[in-house]
């Protein structure tokens, strides 16, 4: 009896004892290493996105300082960092959603294919058409059917297109939702589960053929199965679309991204602390604050 008890105890300890930091880092790195690296070989679409000296304010509060990042074609970039460090704010400056907050201001440039999207006389609806966004909370249009939701971008941006059926199927397939909804395309968007709704939102974002897809914690409300499916989708998308994903899940960052940017605020505005290939961020980060964060010592 006693021996048995001890054995159990031993096993339990083995599970619950936190492995030391080095182990986590190397396990994340090994996840990152196992993924196919496509960014180096494929330079699929010609588009590229670059943030130059981006600052952001809410009222007089400076929340983001001097972010320089470039997102070349065919690359998935993960943005990580503790809560409140300005990741979402940065993401929203990239497709001009930031300016919907009445007191919001920004400085710097965001170049899409070399052209500043904040340049005077820019048609902001065209910008958002090229730079799509998936939000943290699934937000399908409940007054539309599933099919209409997928095609809603065309209607909203007044794009004419033939063979809409094909497009609908293609987008739903790419978002990993087609098999689940192909028999009920006419039911309401709100009738899906949370994970299905999120994939519907991804399909909707894909339907307008964006060059860039910004994703703000797209899997935070999803089960592991839906999460994996969305990660697969992201990997596939990366061949034709620039993907920028904000995530709190280190494993996810390691699994889907080619490059990772680490944001941090130390009292003042949030800053980009380190930007490097994902493998390096997780195996041998240069900044000790990055190391502390990815090993779970703070944040």
């Amino acid at each position, binding site marked *: 009896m006693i021996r048995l008890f001890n054995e159990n105890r031993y096993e339990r300890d083995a599970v619950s004892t936190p492995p030391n930091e080095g182990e986590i880092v190397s396990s994340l790195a090994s996840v990152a290493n196992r993924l196919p690296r496509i960014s180096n070989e494929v330079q699929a679409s010609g588009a590229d996105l670059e943030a130059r000296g981006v600052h952001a304010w809410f009222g007089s509060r400076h929340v983001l300082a001097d972010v320089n990042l470039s997102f070349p074609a065919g690359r998935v970039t993960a943005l990580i960092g503790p809560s409140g460090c300005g990741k979402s704010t940065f993401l929203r400056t990239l*497709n001009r*959603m930031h300016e*919907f907050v*009445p007191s919001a201001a920004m400085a710097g440039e965001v170049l899409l294919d070399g052209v500043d999207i904040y340049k005077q006389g820019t048609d902001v*609806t*065209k910008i*958002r*058409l090229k730079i*799509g*966004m998936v*939000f943290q*909370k699934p*937000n*399908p*249009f*409940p*007054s*539309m059917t599933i099919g209409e939701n997928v095609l*809603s*971008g065309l*209607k*909203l*941006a*007044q794009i004419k297109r033939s063979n809409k059926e094909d497009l609908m199927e293609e987008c739903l397939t790419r978002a990993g939702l087609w098999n689940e909804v192909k028999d009920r395309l006419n039911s309401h968007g709100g009738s899906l589960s949370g994970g299905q709704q999120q994939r519907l*939102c991804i399909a*909707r*974002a894909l339907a*307008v053929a964006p060059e860039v897809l910004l994703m703000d914690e797209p899997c935070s409300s999803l089960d592991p199965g839906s999460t994996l499916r969305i990660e697969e989708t992201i990997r596939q998308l990366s061949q034709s679309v620039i993907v920028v994903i904000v995530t709190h899940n280190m494993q996810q960052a390691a699994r889907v991204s080619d490059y990772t940017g680490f944001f941090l605020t130390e009292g003042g505005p949030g800053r980009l602390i380190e930007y490097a290939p994902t493998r390096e961020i997780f195996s041998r980060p240069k900044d000790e604050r990055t190391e502390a964060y990815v090993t779970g010592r703070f944040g």
Partner: protein
Amino acid sequence: MANGSLLDEQAPPLPREITTQPRFSDRVFRLVITAGGFTSLLVLGLIAAFLAYRGLEVFRTFGYHFITNYKWDGGNPDAGVKPSLGIGAMLIGTIVISLVALAIALPVSVGASLFLTYYVPNFLRKPLTILVDLMAAIPSVVYGLWGFFVLMPHAVYWAKLLHKYLGWIPVFDVPLPIFERSPFIAGLVLAVMIIPIITAISREVFTQVPLDRVQAAYALGATRWSMIRAVVLPFGSSGIAGGAMLGLGRAMGETVAVYLVLNLAYKANFHILFSSGGSIASMIVNKFGEASPFELKGLMAAGLVLFAITLLVNYLANLIVRRTARTGR
């Protein structure tokens, strides 16, 4: 475990009675609001009872003819002429002018509230909102006088234009070219009067549109107008319908303004541009002064009919609101 076993079989327990002991403050509050709720019901009921009681004799005399008959003749007891009372024309007239008012006020109000919510520059939003709300505070007799002296000359011109270009549509046709004091002009005045309430309700609904849907639309490259069509209007449709019905109810009950503007005639007239119309409420005002005792009872009965219709409209409003609320959101 097994329910099948005879030995285990036991009567299920009786559901427990669940009670809560409300606090003293809660009980006082409940008493106050219950009293308030019942008072309004009581007042409503008493009004209906009073009208029914006073009008009973008339209903008994004429039956449903009271509603279908177009003529209102007080009779002449000395000459042996029996009275013949009917509000058919007035009933139709009420519906006609209210619908005209709604048809004009609804698009204007929805447009105004969209403008106030999504388009107006920030520094103008507050003053303009207050201005629209203030429109509701103007006494209806002022609207009536304004309608008669200021609006009428212009409205007659618009009516002539409508008749000239759309006269082939029956409602815009006229039997005689007399355009003053028509249901159209009364409807215009009423429209101005109900715009504030419909605008206020629509605006309230528009401010409740979920922000994540609005952002979803913009993130897909929507223009402001396409966002409004895809997100705001579907979300707000039930609220707008409710506001419209409230406005309709207000328009049906409006008295003095219509009395001053409209040319009351005891004929059913569907030509809205023609100078002849009806309205139960303004007929009551019109007849009240010189009515015989029996006619007075008829007016009470007319009031009861108007009351019932207004209740019906409000009930329909509720129905629409609930139905669209289920599907629209």
